[in-house]
């Protein structure tokens, strides 16, 4: 007998296929059962004995329905006859949910694939039977795990929402009453009282921006940022950023200019773009003691597509080459001794880079220590 021959080539008798004479079948990992047109078992392999707990002598010549629970038997006879009328290959996992019945009366879920087999004695149906207990258990565990993860995600969202609410409530009183005092509504202040209250106010605002940054970050990291891509004018965004920071530049007596040389619109999320530019420009003004800060917007290309480069350059303290990548990590302010002088959350650049990526662009830095830095955000014109 030549084992390279396939079962379909009408070469074998049942006797050729039985037992160790046909190892491919005998040692197949699935229980394999050949059934004739009357539904009688004509041949089984070793795995069938193991799976159902019968010796093969107890199975041969008996109806196949002995291997399924009584409640399925009536329906099974009908299905079996139907299949014989139109025999075709039916792979695993298709068809009805069925249980197998062991000799000891216990049941287990099975997957069955069917195929017609031609032998010298005629056509039989070969059923390969696999115990799907493990797969079913895995599926159930997977479903439970998914449900638990969804629950955890919901819990995280609602935790973020309560955090935001609970932290803002006391800040409302702090910022509010500091404001009423500074507005001198209850009465006049001495210069020193005013100076101290301004410290309270800026610290409270700092705390608020820290809370906002942390929540933004949590939203970005859980994929919850809602972006609205729409055509916007780069100049409008730069003008808005410029006017909201002009006072800070004037206060530090820095030259602050904008140069927009692109026309037309960019399709992006206005809020995220504004947030990135505000952050970069605010940093530039913060870390520059004298000289200038300028925003340049020019046409460029990114991944061979039309893009716009927003650059924020300063004549500030600059960043050493080794520090330039560290800059974009969360809570890294390069010189810890600087944190009191330059107030910031340490999250700004990390957030900016994350937002830049969400917009499909990229944020880079070039800098010379002691001379200044340029942060460039390259943004594709279309989404």
């Amino acid at each position: 007998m030549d084992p390279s021959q396939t079962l379909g080539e009408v070469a074998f008798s049942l006797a050729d296929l039985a037992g160790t004479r046909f190892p491919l079948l005998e040692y197949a990992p699935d229980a394999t059962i050949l059934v004739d047109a009357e539904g009688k078992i004509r041949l089984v392999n070793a795995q069938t004995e193991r799976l159902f707990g019968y010796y093969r002598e107890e199975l041969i010549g008996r109806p196949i329905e002995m291997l399924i629970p009584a409640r399925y038997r009536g329906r099974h006879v009908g299905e079996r006859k139907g299949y014989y009328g139109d025999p075709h290959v039916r792979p695993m996992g298709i068809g009805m949910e069925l249980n197998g019945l062991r000799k000891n009366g216990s049941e287990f879920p099975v997957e069955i694939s069917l195929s017609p087999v031609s032998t010298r004695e005629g056509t039989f149906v070969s059923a390969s039977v696999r115990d799907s207990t493990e797969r079913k258990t895995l599926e159930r565990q997977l479903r439970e795990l998914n449900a638990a993860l969804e629950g955890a995600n919901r819990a995280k969202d609602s935790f973020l929402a309560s955090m935001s609410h609970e932290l803002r409530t006391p800040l409302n009183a702090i910022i509010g009453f500091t404001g009423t005092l500074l507005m001198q509504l209850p009465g006049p202040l001495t210069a020193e009282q005013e100076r101290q209250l301004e410290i309270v106010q800026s610290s409270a605002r700092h705390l608020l921006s820290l809370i906002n940054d942390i929540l933004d970050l949590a939203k970005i990291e859980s994929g919850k940022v809602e972006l609205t891509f729409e055509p916007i004018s780069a100049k409008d965004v730069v003008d808005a950023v410029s006017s909201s920071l002009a006072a800070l530049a004037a206060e530090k007596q820095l030259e602050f200019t904008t140069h927009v040389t692109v026309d037309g619109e960019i399709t992006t999320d206005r809020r995220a773009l504004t947030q990135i530019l505000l952050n970069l420009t605010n940093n530039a003004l913060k870390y520059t003691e004298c000289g200038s800060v300028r925003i340049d917007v020019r046409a460029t290309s990114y991944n061979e597509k039309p893009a716009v480069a927003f650059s924020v350059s300063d004549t500030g303290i600059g960043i050493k080459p080794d520090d330039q990548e560290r800059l974009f990590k969360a809570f890294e302010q390069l010189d810890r001794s600087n944190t009191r002088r330059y107030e910031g959350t340490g999250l700004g650049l990390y957030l900016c880079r994350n937002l830049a990526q969400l917009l499909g662009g990229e944020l880079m830095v070039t800098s010379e220590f002691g001379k200044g830095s340029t942060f460039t955000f390259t943004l594709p014109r279309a989404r």
Partner: protein
Amino acid sequence: MSRILVVDDNAVNLDLMLYLLRAFGHEADGHADGLAGLHAALRGDFALVLTDILMPGIDGYEFARRFKRESHLSAVPLVAVTALAMSGDRERITEAGFDGYITKPIEPRTFVAQVEAFLGRDGP
């Protein structure tokens, strides 16, 4: 000046808003209890109602539902002043029937102007 009703279960925040509004010459009443606030609002002698959203008992959403079904109050703007400031909150609050939405922490310098804008738009 106009009578303004402020409802907030947080006594300190209620105090802040009443203080600010009165400092700018408005007549303002406050309630720290949602239900008492609603009853006061339903009596109808206010030109503007400001309410917190998350309150025990009657929250801002329920407040809006019961306030907005009173036809005699249809000309009175209802504004939420709330620390619910995450994305989606504005939409939820607007859908609940509020005419305006101010987030906490309030900026004292702009709060009064924001409130006065509501009075100017819809009130006397």
